[in-house]
Protein backbone atom coordinates (compact mmCIF):
# COMPACT_ATOMS: atom_id res chain seq x y z
CA UNK A 1 0.00 0.00 0.00
CA UNK A 2 1.31 3.38 -0.91
CA UNK A 3 1.01 6.00 1.73
CA UNK A 4 2.76 8.97 3.15
CA UNK A 5 4.38 8.76 6.49
CA UNK A 6 2.26 10.00 9.31
CA UNK A 7 3.69 13.07 10.97
CA UNK A 8 2.38 15.40 13.58
CA UNK A 9 1.39 18.77 12.20
CA UNK A 10 0.60 22.05 13.83
CA UNK A 11 -3.02 23.00 14.47
CA UNK A 12 -5.56 20.34 13.55
CA UNK A 13 -4.69 16.73 14.17
CA UNK A 14 -4.66 15.21 10.70
CA UNK A 15 -3.01 12.01 11.76
CA UNK A 16 -6.34 10.25 11.75
CA UNK A 17 -7.34 11.37 8.29
CA UNK A 18 -7.13 9.16 5.27
CA UNK A 19 -7.18 10.60 1.75
CA UNK A 20 -8.21 8.22 -1.06
CA UNK A 21 -7.20 9.28 -4.56
CA UNK A 22 -5.18 12.13 -5.92
CA UNK A 23 -5.52 15.35 -4.01
CA UNK A 24 -2.99 18.06 -4.63
CA UNK A 25 -3.63 19.64 -1.26
CA UNK A 26 -3.16 16.47 0.80
CA UNK A 27 -0.11 17.54 2.70
CA UNK A 28 1.84 16.22 5.62
CA UNK A 29 -0.06 14.63 8.42
CA UNK A 30 -2.63 12.62 6.45
CA UNK A 31 -2.44 8.99 5.51
CA UNK A 32 -2.93 8.51 1.82
CA UNK A 33 -3.73 5.76 -0.64
CA UNK A 34 -4.54 5.64 -4.31
CA UNK A 35 -7.68 3.57 -4.64
CA UNK A 36 -10.71 2.20 -2.84
CA UNK A 37 -9.30 -1.29 -2.37
CA UNK A 38 -6.31 0.01 -0.46
CA UNK A 39 -8.59 2.34 1.45
CA UNK A 40 -10.80 -0.55 2.57
CA UNK A 41 -7.79 -2.62 3.61
CA UNK A 42 -6.27 0.30 5.53
CA UNK A 43 -9.50 1.39 7.17
CA UNK A 44 -10.08 -2.13 8.48
CA UNK A 45 -6.63 -2.22 10.06
CA UNK A 46 -6.49 1.18 11.74
CA UNK A 47 -8.97 3.68 12.99
CA UNK A 48 -9.44 6.92 11.09
CA UNK A 49 -11.64 9.83 12.18
CA UNK A 50 -12.31 11.03 8.65
CA UNK A 51 -11.82 9.46 5.24
CA UNK A 52 -11.76 11.79 2.23
CA UNK A 53 -12.57 10.08 -1.06
CA UNK A 54 -11.65 11.95 -4.21
CA UNK A 55 -14.36 11.06 -6.74
CA UNK A 56 -12.90 9.64 -9.94
CA UNK A 57 -14.65 10.31 -13.26
CA UNK A 58 -16.39 6.95 -13.03
CA UNK A 59 -17.36 5.64 -9.63
CA UNK A 60 -16.66 5.10 -6.85
CA UNK A 61 -19.43 2.54 -6.78
CA UNK A 62 -21.88 2.78 -3.94
CA UNK A 63 -20.90 -0.80 -3.06
CA UNK A 64 -17.28 0.21 -2.54
CA UNK A 65 -18.29 3.10 -0.30
CA UNK A 66 -20.66 0.87 1.65
CA UNK A 67 -17.83 -1.58 2.32
CA UNK A 68 -15.57 1.29 3.37
CA UNK A 69 -18.31 2.42 5.74
CA UNK A 70 -18.70 -1.09 7.15
CA UNK A 71 -15.03 -1.72 7.89
CA UNK A 72 -14.04 1.77 9.00
CA UNK A 73 -15.73 1.64 12.38
CA UNK A 74 -17.59 4.93 12.43
CA UNK A 75 -15.16 7.12 10.48
CA UNK A 76 -16.78 10.06 8.72
CA UNK A 77 -16.66 9.59 4.96
CA UNK A 78 -16.42 12.76 2.91
CA UNK A 79 -16.53 12.86 -0.88
CA UNK A 80 -14.47 15.41 -2.79
CA UNK A 81 -16.31 15.99 -6.05
CA UNK A 82 -15.95 18.19 -9.08
CA UNK A 83 -18.80 20.55 -9.86
CA UNK A 84 -20.33 18.23 -12.44
CA UNK A 85 -20.27 15.35 -9.94
CA UNK A 86 -22.32 17.22 -7.38
CA UNK A 87 -25.63 15.52 -8.23
CA UNK A 88 -24.06 12.09 -7.83
CA UNK A 89 -22.36 13.07 -4.59
CA UNK A 90 -25.67 14.37 -3.27
CA UNK A 91 -27.41 11.15 -4.27
CA UNK A 92 -24.81 9.09 -2.40
CA UNK A 93 -25.36 11.25 0.65
CA UNK A 94 -29.13 10.97 0.59
CA UNK A 95 -30.14 7.59 -0.76
CA UNK A 96 -33.90 7.40 -1.18
CA UNK A 97 -35.52 4.87 1.13
CA UNK A 98 -32.32 4.11 3.03
CA UNK A 99 -31.86 4.84 6.68
CA UNK A 100 -28.09 5.19 6.53
CA UNK A 101 -26.06 7.32 4.19
CA UNK A 102 -23.20 5.88 2.17
CA UNK A 103 -21.25 9.07 2.80
CA UNK A 104 -21.58 11.77 5.45
CA UNK A 105 -20.77 14.83 3.43
CA UNK A 106 -19.28 16.16 0.24
CA UNK A 107 -17.23 19.13 -0.90
CA UNK A 108 -16.65 20.61 -4.30
CA UNK A 109 -13.08 20.64 -5.54
CA UNK A 110 -10.66 22.33 -5.54
CA UNK A 111 -10.70 21.63 -1.84
CA UNK A 112 -8.26 22.99 0.66
CA UNK A 113 -7.82 20.22 3.19
CA UNK A 114 -6.07 22.64 5.51
CA UNK A 115 -9.35 24.45 6.00
CA UNK A 116 -11.30 21.38 7.07
CA UNK A 117 -12.59 20.76 10.57
CA UNK A 118 -12.87 22.42 13.92
CA UNK A 119 -14.84 25.31 12.47
CA UNK A 120 -11.86 26.54 10.49
CA UNK A 121 -12.76 28.89 7.69
CA UNK A 122 -12.85 27.72 4.12
CA UNK A 123 -10.04 29.36 2.23
CA UNK A 124 -10.49 30.62 -1.31
CA UNK A 125 -9.50 27.93 -3.80
CA UNK A 126 -6.07 28.53 -5.22
CA UNK A 127 -5.53 29.34 -8.86
CA UNK A 128 -9.04 30.53 -9.55
CA UNK A 129 -10.14 34.09 -10.10
CA UNK A 130 -13.46 33.70 -8.36
CA UNK A 131 -14.20 31.17 -5.69
CA UNK A 132 -17.12 28.95 -6.50
CA UNK A 133 -19.30 27.48 -3.83
CA UNK A 134 -19.01 24.64 -1.46
CA UNK A 135 -21.99 22.94 0.02
CA UNK A 136 -23.60 20.87 2.74
CA UNK A 137 -21.19 20.48 5.56
CA UNK A 138 -21.93 19.76 9.14
CA UNK A 139 -18.44 20.90 9.89
CA UNK A 140 -18.90 24.46 8.80
CA UNK A 141 -20.90 26.95 10.67
CA UNK A 142 -24.10 28.48 9.39
CA UNK A 143 -22.46 31.75 8.42
CA UNK A 144 -20.03 30.04 6.09
CA UNK A 145 -22.86 28.00 4.55
CA UNK A 146 -24.91 31.12 4.01
CA UNK A 147 -21.97 32.86 2.36
CA UNK A 148 -21.45 29.90 0.08
CA UNK A 149 -25.06 30.01 -0.98
CA UNK A 150 -24.88 33.71 -1.66
CA UNK A 151 -21.81 33.17 -3.79
CA UNK A 152 -23.42 30.51 -5.97
CA UNK A 153 -27.17 31.12 -6.02
CA UNK A 154 -29.42 33.78 -7.42
CA UNK A 155 -31.05 35.59 -4.54
CA UNK A 156 -34.39 36.18 -6.27
CA UNK A 157 -35.12 32.84 -7.92
CA UNK A 158 -33.10 30.45 -5.77
CA UNK A 159 -31.47 28.84 -8.80
CA UNK A 160 -27.76 29.08 -9.60
CA UNK A 161 -26.26 32.43 -10.46
CA UNK A 162 -24.23 33.66 -13.41
CA UNK A 163 -20.91 33.01 -11.72
CA UNK A 164 -21.77 29.41 -10.95
CA UNK A 165 -23.13 28.69 -14.44
CA UNK A 166 -20.08 30.09 -16.17
CA UNK A 167 -17.65 28.27 -13.88
CA UNK A 168 -19.60 25.03 -14.24
CA UNK A 169 -19.60 25.39 -18.00
CA UNK A 170 -15.87 26.02 -17.98
CA UNK A 171 -15.24 22.88 -15.94
CA UNK A 172 -17.59 20.63 -17.85
CA UNK A 173 -16.10 21.75 -21.18
CA UNK A 174 -12.68 20.82 -19.85
CA UNK A 175 -14.03 17.43 -18.79
CA UNK A 176 -15.83 16.98 -22.11
CA UNK A 177 -12.55 17.44 -23.94
CA UNK A 178 -11.12 14.49 -22.02
CA UNK A 179 -14.10 12.17 -21.96
CA UNK A 180 -16.02 12.94 -25.11
CA UNK A 181 -19.09 14.23 -23.33
CA UNK A 182 -22.01 16.05 -24.91
CA UNK A 183 -22.42 19.58 -23.55
CA UNK A 184 -25.14 21.95 -24.77
CA UNK A 185 -25.96 25.46 -23.59
CA UNK A 186 -29.48 26.85 -23.69
CA UNK A 187 -29.74 30.61 -23.39
CA UNK A 188 -33.23 32.04 -23.13
CA UNK A 189 -35.20 35.05 -21.96
CA UNK A 190 -38.80 35.92 -21.28
CA UNK A 191 -40.60 37.41 -24.26
CA UNK A 192 -41.76 40.99 -23.59
CA UNK A 193 -40.64 40.90 -20.01
CA UNK A 194 -40.78 44.67 -19.81
CA UNK A 195 -44.50 44.44 -20.45
CA UNK A 196 -45.03 42.44 -17.24
CA UNK A 197 -42.99 44.85 -15.18
CA UNK A 198 -44.69 47.90 -16.64
CA UNK A 199 -48.24 46.50 -16.52
CA UNK A 200 -48.31 44.60 -13.24
CA UNK A 201 -45.40 46.06 -11.29
CA UNK A 202 -42.01 44.71 -10.33
CA UNK A 203 -43.44 42.29 -7.76
CA UNK A 204 -45.19 40.38 -10.53
CA UNK A 205 -42.08 40.67 -12.69
CA UNK A 206 -40.11 38.97 -9.93
CA UNK A 207 -42.76 36.26 -9.73
CA UNK A 208 -42.47 35.66 -13.46
CA UNK A 209 -38.72 35.16 -13.15
CA UNK A 210 -39.11 32.80 -10.20
CA UNK A 211 -41.72 30.69 -12.00
CA UNK A 212 -39.55 30.48 -15.10
CA UNK A 213 -36.63 29.18 -13.02
CA UNK A 214 -38.79 26.63 -11.21
CA UNK A 215 -40.39 25.34 -14.41
CA UNK A 216 -37.09 25.05 -16.21
CA UNK A 217 -35.71 23.04 -13.30
CA UNK A 218 -38.63 20.63 -13.59
CA UNK A 219 -38.12 20.12 -17.30
CA UNK A 220 -34.50 19.01 -17.16
CA UNK A 221 -32.47 16.33 -15.41
CA UNK A 222 -31.16 16.67 -11.88
CA UNK A 223 -27.54 17.02 -12.95
CA UNK A 224 -28.21 19.72 -15.55
CA UNK A 225 -27.48 23.20 -14.25
CA UNK A 226 -30.13 25.93 -14.44
CA UNK A 227 -29.12 29.50 -13.66
CA UNK A 228 -30.19 33.10 -13.99
CA UNK A 229 -27.63 35.09 -15.88
CA UNK A 230 -29.12 38.52 -15.21
CA UNK A 231 -32.36 40.45 -15.76
CA UNK A 232 -34.76 38.09 -17.52
CA UNK A 233 -32.00 35.98 -19.05
CA UNK A 234 -31.45 32.37 -18.04
CA UNK A 235 -29.03 29.63 -19.05
CA UNK A 236 -29.13 25.86 -18.77
CA UNK A 237 -26.10 23.62 -19.16
CA UNK A 238 -27.19 20.19 -20.40
CA UNK A 239 -24.56 17.49 -20.26
CA UNK A 240 -24.22 13.73 -20.37
CA UNK A 241 -22.62 12.29 -17.30
CA UNK A 242 -19.58 10.08 -17.98
CA UNK A 243 -21.15 7.02 -16.33
CA UNK A 244 -24.44 7.44 -18.19
CA UNK A 245 -22.70 7.82 -21.50
CA UNK A 246 -20.50 4.78 -20.90
CA UNK A 247 -23.43 2.70 -19.76
CA UNK A 248 -25.49 3.43 -22.83
CA UNK A 249 -22.76 3.66 -25.45
CA UNK A 250 -23.33 1.20 -28.21
CA UNK A 251 -26.29 -0.42 -26.51
CA UNK A 252 -29.58 1.01 -27.56
CA UNK A 253 -28.86 3.28 -30.46
CA UNK A 254 -25.87 4.40 -32.47
CA UNK A 255 -24.39 7.82 -31.83
CA UNK A 256 -25.56 9.00 -35.23
CA UNK A 257 -29.14 8.47 -34.17
CA UNK A 258 -28.68 10.33 -30.94
CA UNK A 259 -28.07 13.54 -32.79
CA UNK A 260 -30.13 15.44 -35.22
CA UNK A 261 -28.03 15.07 -38.30
CA UNK A 262 -28.20 18.55 -39.72
CA UNK A 263 -27.71 20.39 -36.43
CA UNK A 264 -25.19 18.16 -34.66
CA UNK A 265 -27.06 18.87 -31.48
CA UNK A 266 -27.82 16.03 -29.09
CA UNK A 267 -31.49 15.21 -29.14
CA UNK A 268 -32.15 15.35 -25.39
CA UNK A 269 -31.40 19.07 -24.84
CA UNK A 270 -33.61 20.00 -27.78
CA UNK A 271 -36.38 17.86 -26.37
CA UNK A 272 -36.04 19.32 -22.88
CA UNK A 273 -35.85 22.91 -24.12
CA UNK A 274 -38.95 22.40 -26.26
CA UNK A 275 -40.76 20.75 -23.38
CA UNK A 276 -40.01 23.77 -21.20
CA UNK A 277 -41.11 26.22 -23.90
CA UNK A 278 -44.43 24.44 -24.31
CA UNK A 279 -44.93 24.03 -20.55
CA UNK A 280 -44.43 27.69 -19.79
CA UNK A 281 -46.57 28.80 -22.74
CA UNK A 282 -49.47 26.65 -21.61
CA UNK A 283 -49.22 27.36 -17.88
CA UNK A 284 -52.02 29.36 -16.33
CA UNK A 285 -50.39 31.92 -14.13
CA UNK A 286 -52.92 33.44 -11.77
CA UNK A 287 -50.68 36.25 -10.62
CA UNK A 288 -50.87 37.80 -14.07
CA UNK A 289 -54.55 38.62 -13.41
CA UNK A 290 -57.64 38.34 -15.52
CA UNK A 291 -56.84 41.44 -17.55
CA UNK A 292 -53.32 40.33 -18.38
CA UNK A 293 -51.91 38.01 -20.97
CA UNK A 294 -52.25 35.09 -18.60
CA UNK A 295 -49.43 33.19 -20.23
CA UNK A 296 -45.70 33.52 -20.59
CA UNK A 297 -43.53 32.71 -23.57
CA UNK A 298 -39.79 32.40 -23.93
CA UNK A 299 -37.31 32.50 -26.78
CA UNK A 300 -34.03 30.66 -26.65
CA UNK A 301 -30.96 29.49 -28.51
CA UNK A 302 -29.02 26.25 -28.23
CA UNK A 303 -25.26 25.93 -28.78
CA UNK A 304 -23.28 22.71 -28.47
CA UNK A 305 -19.69 21.96 -27.58
CA UNK A 306 -17.50 21.63 -29.60
CA UNK A 307 -19.45 22.12 -32.86
CA UNK A 308 -20.68 25.64 -32.08
CA UNK A 309 -17.96 26.80 -29.74
CA UNK A 310 -15.07 25.52 -27.67
CA UNK A 311 -15.04 28.07 -24.86
CA UNK A 312 -17.58 29.52 -22.46
CA UNK A 313 -17.55 32.82 -24.28
CA UNK A 314 -18.00 31.24 -27.71
CA UNK A 315 -20.89 29.08 -26.56
CA UNK A 316 -22.67 32.01 -24.91
CA UNK A 317 -22.13 34.16 -27.99
CA UNK A 318 -23.48 31.49 -30.33
CA UNK A 319 -26.48 30.66 -28.15
CA UNK A 320 -27.23 34.39 -27.84
CA UNK A 321 -27.12 34.74 -31.62
CA UNK A 322 -29.57 31.85 -32.01
CA UNK A 323 -31.85 33.38 -29.38
CA UNK A 324 -31.88 36.72 -31.20
CA UNK A 325 -32.83 34.88 -34.37
CA UNK A 326 -35.73 33.30 -32.48
CA UNK A 327 -36.86 36.75 -31.35
CA UNK A 328 -36.49 38.20 -34.83
CA UNK A 329 -38.56 35.49 -36.42
CA UNK A 330 -41.59 35.68 -34.16
CA UNK A 331 -40.65 34.70 -30.57
CA UNK A 332 -41.92 31.74 -28.54
CA UNK A 333 -39.40 29.36 -30.09
CA UNK A 334 -36.07 27.63 -29.49
CA UNK A 335 -33.54 27.87 -32.29
CA UNK A 336 -30.29 26.09 -32.98
CA UNK A 337 -27.09 27.77 -34.07
CA UNK A 338 -27.20 28.33 -37.81
CA UNK A 339 -30.93 27.66 -38.05
CA UNK A 340 -33.00 30.28 -39.83
CA UNK A 341 -36.65 31.26 -39.80
Amino acid sequence: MQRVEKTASAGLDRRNWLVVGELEAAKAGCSKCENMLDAIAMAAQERFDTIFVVMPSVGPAAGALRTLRRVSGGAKIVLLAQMHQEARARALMRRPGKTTNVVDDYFIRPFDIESFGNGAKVAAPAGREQPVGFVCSDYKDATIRELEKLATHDDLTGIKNRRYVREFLRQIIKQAGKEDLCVTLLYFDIDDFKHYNDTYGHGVGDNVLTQAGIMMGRCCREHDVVGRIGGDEFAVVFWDRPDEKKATAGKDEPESERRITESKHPREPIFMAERFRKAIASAKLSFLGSGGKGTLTISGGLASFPEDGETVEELFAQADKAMLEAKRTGKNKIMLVGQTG
Partner: protein
Amino acid sequence: VSNHNLFVIIAAGQRCSLLPGVAELVERMGVEYVVCQDVYDAVGELATAEADRAVVVVGGFEELSREGMRLFEICRLRKQTRCCCIFGNGREMASGRFFTAIRAGVFLARGLDEFGRMVEQLAANEREVADLSKMLKKGGNGPAKSNVSMKQGGVLSRAEIEALLGAG
Protein backbone atom coordinates in the same frame (compact mmCIF):
# COMPACT_ATOMS: atom_id res chain seq x y z
CA VAL B 1 -13.98 -33.60 6.86
CA SER B 2 -13.93 -30.18 8.46
CA ASN B 3 -11.40 -27.61 7.35
CA HIS B 4 -11.93 -24.99 9.98
CA ASN B 5 -8.77 -22.97 9.52
CA LEU B 6 -9.38 -22.35 5.85
CA PHE B 7 -11.69 -19.59 4.75
CA VAL B 8 -12.85 -18.92 1.19
CA ILE B 9 -14.03 -15.51 0.03
CA ILE B 10 -16.07 -15.77 -3.15
CA ALA B 11 -16.08 -12.45 -4.98
CA ALA B 12 -19.10 -12.89 -7.20
CA GLY B 13 -22.44 -11.19 -7.25
CA GLN B 14 -25.65 -13.20 -7.04
CA ARG B 15 -25.92 -13.20 -10.84
CA CYS B 16 -22.39 -14.46 -11.45
CA SER B 17 -22.35 -17.84 -13.16
CA LEU B 18 -19.41 -19.01 -11.04
CA LEU B 19 -21.21 -18.61 -7.75
CA PRO B 20 -23.35 -21.74 -7.48
CA GLY B 21 -20.55 -24.10 -8.50
CA VAL B 22 -17.87 -22.57 -6.28
CA ALA B 23 -20.15 -22.28 -3.26
CA GLU B 24 -21.34 -25.88 -3.62
CA LEU B 25 -17.80 -27.15 -4.00
CA VAL B 26 -16.36 -25.46 -0.91
CA GLU B 27 -19.39 -26.37 1.15
CA ARG B 28 -18.93 -30.02 0.19
CA MET B 29 -15.30 -29.77 1.31
CA GLY B 30 -16.33 -28.50 4.72
CA VAL B 31 -14.67 -25.14 4.19
CA GLU B 32 -16.20 -22.00 5.60
CA TYR B 33 -16.97 -19.43 2.95
CA VAL B 34 -18.59 -16.09 2.38
CA VAL B 35 -20.12 -14.68 -0.80
CA CYS B 36 -19.23 -11.07 -1.60
CA GLN B 37 -20.96 -8.82 -4.08
CA ASP B 38 -17.75 -7.46 -5.57
CA VAL B 39 -14.02 -7.13 -5.11
CA TYR B 40 -14.45 -4.25 -2.62
CA ASP B 41 -16.62 -6.37 -0.38
CA ALA B 42 -14.06 -9.18 -0.72
CA VAL B 43 -11.23 -6.92 0.45
CA GLY B 44 -13.41 -5.86 3.37
CA GLU B 45 -13.82 -9.52 4.36
CA LEU B 46 -10.14 -10.22 3.85
CA ALA B 47 -9.08 -7.26 5.95
CA THR B 48 -11.31 -8.27 8.83
CA ALA B 49 -10.53 -12.01 8.72
CA GLU B 50 -8.56 -13.50 11.61
CA ALA B 51 -4.88 -12.88 11.05
CA ASP B 52 -3.75 -16.48 11.48
CA ARG B 53 -6.39 -17.93 9.21
CA ALA B 54 -5.56 -19.17 5.72
CA VAL B 55 -7.73 -17.41 3.17
CA VAL B 56 -8.51 -18.01 -0.48
CA VAL B 57 -10.10 -15.21 -2.50
CA VAL B 58 -11.75 -16.59 -5.61
CA GLY B 59 -13.68 -15.05 -8.50
CA GLY B 60 -13.60 -14.23 -12.16
CA PHE B 61 -10.56 -12.43 -13.54
CA GLU B 62 -12.52 -9.32 -14.61
CA GLU B 63 -13.91 -8.77 -11.13
CA LEU B 64 -10.75 -9.54 -9.21
CA SER B 65 -8.51 -7.43 -11.46
CA ARG B 66 -10.47 -4.19 -10.94
CA GLU B 67 -8.65 -1.10 -9.64
CA GLY B 68 -5.45 -1.97 -11.45
CA MET B 69 -5.21 -5.46 -9.93
CA ARG B 70 -4.61 -4.11 -6.44
CA LEU B 71 -6.32 -7.11 -4.88
CA PHE B 72 -3.53 -9.37 -6.09
CA GLU B 73 -0.97 -7.25 -4.29
CA ILE B 74 -3.09 -7.07 -1.13
CA CYS B 75 -3.34 -10.87 -1.14
CA ARG B 76 0.37 -11.24 -1.76
CA LEU B 77 1.20 -9.06 1.24
CA ARG B 78 -1.09 -10.91 3.62
CA LYS B 79 0.21 -14.09 5.18
CA GLN B 80 -1.42 -17.37 4.22
CA THR B 81 -3.54 -15.81 1.53
CA ARG B 82 -4.08 -17.11 -1.95
CA CYS B 83 -5.93 -15.41 -4.75
CA CYS B 84 -7.50 -17.58 -7.42
CA CYS B 85 -9.09 -16.56 -10.71
CA ILE B 86 -11.31 -19.02 -12.46
CA PHE B 87 -11.50 -18.87 -16.23
CA GLY B 88 -14.39 -20.16 -18.25
CA ASN B 89 -12.14 -20.62 -21.27
CA GLY B 90 -8.55 -19.91 -22.14
CA ARG B 91 -9.10 -16.87 -24.31
CA GLU B 92 -8.57 -14.21 -21.63
CA MET B 93 -5.25 -15.78 -20.74
CA ALA B 94 -3.50 -14.28 -23.73
CA SER B 95 -3.65 -10.74 -22.36
CA GLY B 96 -0.73 -8.94 -20.74
CA ARG B 97 -2.70 -8.62 -17.55
CA PHE B 98 -2.64 -12.38 -17.24
CA PHE B 99 1.16 -12.37 -16.89
CA THR B 100 1.00 -9.57 -14.35
CA ALA B 101 -1.42 -11.68 -12.33
CA ILE B 102 0.90 -14.66 -12.44
CA ARG B 103 3.81 -12.54 -11.30
CA ALA B 104 1.68 -11.37 -8.38
CA GLY B 105 1.20 -14.99 -7.32
CA VAL B 106 -2.37 -15.46 -8.49
CA PHE B 107 -3.47 -19.04 -9.04
CA LEU B 108 -5.22 -19.37 -12.37
CA ALA B 109 -7.70 -22.20 -12.51
CA ARG B 110 -9.27 -23.41 -15.71
CA GLY B 111 -12.56 -24.45 -14.23
CA LEU B 112 -13.92 -25.70 -10.96
CA ASP B 113 -11.89 -28.91 -10.91
CA GLU B 114 -8.56 -27.10 -10.81
CA PHE B 115 -9.87 -24.73 -8.17
CA GLY B 116 -11.12 -27.69 -6.11
CA ARG B 117 -7.72 -29.38 -6.25
CA MET B 118 -6.02 -26.21 -5.07
CA VAL B 119 -8.39 -25.82 -2.13
CA GLU B 120 -7.99 -29.47 -1.25
CA GLN B 121 -4.21 -29.10 -1.19
CA LEU B 122 -4.39 -25.99 0.98
CA ALA B 123 -6.83 -27.68 3.31
CA ALA B 124 -4.51 -30.68 3.64
CA ASN B 125 -1.60 -28.35 4.45
CA GLU B 126 -3.66 -26.59 7.07
CA ARG B 127 -4.68 -29.88 8.67
CA GLU B 128 -1.07 -30.99 8.87
CA VAL B 129 0.01 -27.68 10.38
CA ALA B 130 -2.79 -27.95 12.93
CA ASP B 131 -1.79 -31.53 13.82
CA LEU B 132 1.83 -30.47 14.28
CA SER B 133 0.81 -27.60 16.49
CA LYS B 134 -1.23 -29.93 18.66
CA MET B 135 1.68 -32.32 18.92
CA LEU B 136 4.08 -29.53 19.92
CA LYS B 137 1.64 -28.27 22.55
CA LYS B 138 1.49 -31.77 24.05
CA GLY B 139 5.28 -31.71 24.36
CA GLY B 140 5.97 -34.08 21.52
CA ASN B 141 9.22 -34.15 19.56
CA GLY B 142 7.87 -32.99 16.25
CA PRO B 143 10.02 -30.95 13.94
CA ALA B 144 10.67 -27.38 15.06
CA LYS B 145 9.65 -26.17 11.65
CA SER B 146 6.97 -27.62 9.49
CA ASN B 147 7.99 -28.44 5.97
CA VAL B 148 4.41 -28.57 4.82
CA SER B 149 3.33 -25.04 5.55
CA MET B 150 1.94 -22.94 2.79
CA LYS B 151 4.45 -21.02 0.79
CA GLN B 152 4.99 -17.54 2.19
CA GLY B 153 2.69 -15.09 0.46
CA GLY B 154 1.35 -17.78 -1.84
CA VAL B 155 3.70 -16.80 -4.68
CA LEU B 156 4.14 -19.32 -7.46
CA SER B 157 7.58 -20.71 -8.05
CA ARG B 158 9.27 -20.33 -11.43
CA ALA B 159 8.64 -24.02 -12.11
CA GLU B 160 4.93 -23.56 -11.42
CA ILE B 161 4.74 -20.52 -13.69
CA GLU B 162 6.53 -22.37 -16.47
CA ALA B 163 4.26 -25.36 -16.04
CA LEU B 164 1.21 -23.14 -16.27
CA LEU B 165 2.45 -21.25 -19.29
CA GLY B 166 3.41 -24.47 -20.98
CA ALA B 167 0.00 -25.91 -20.36
CA GLY B 168 -1.70 -22.78 -21.73
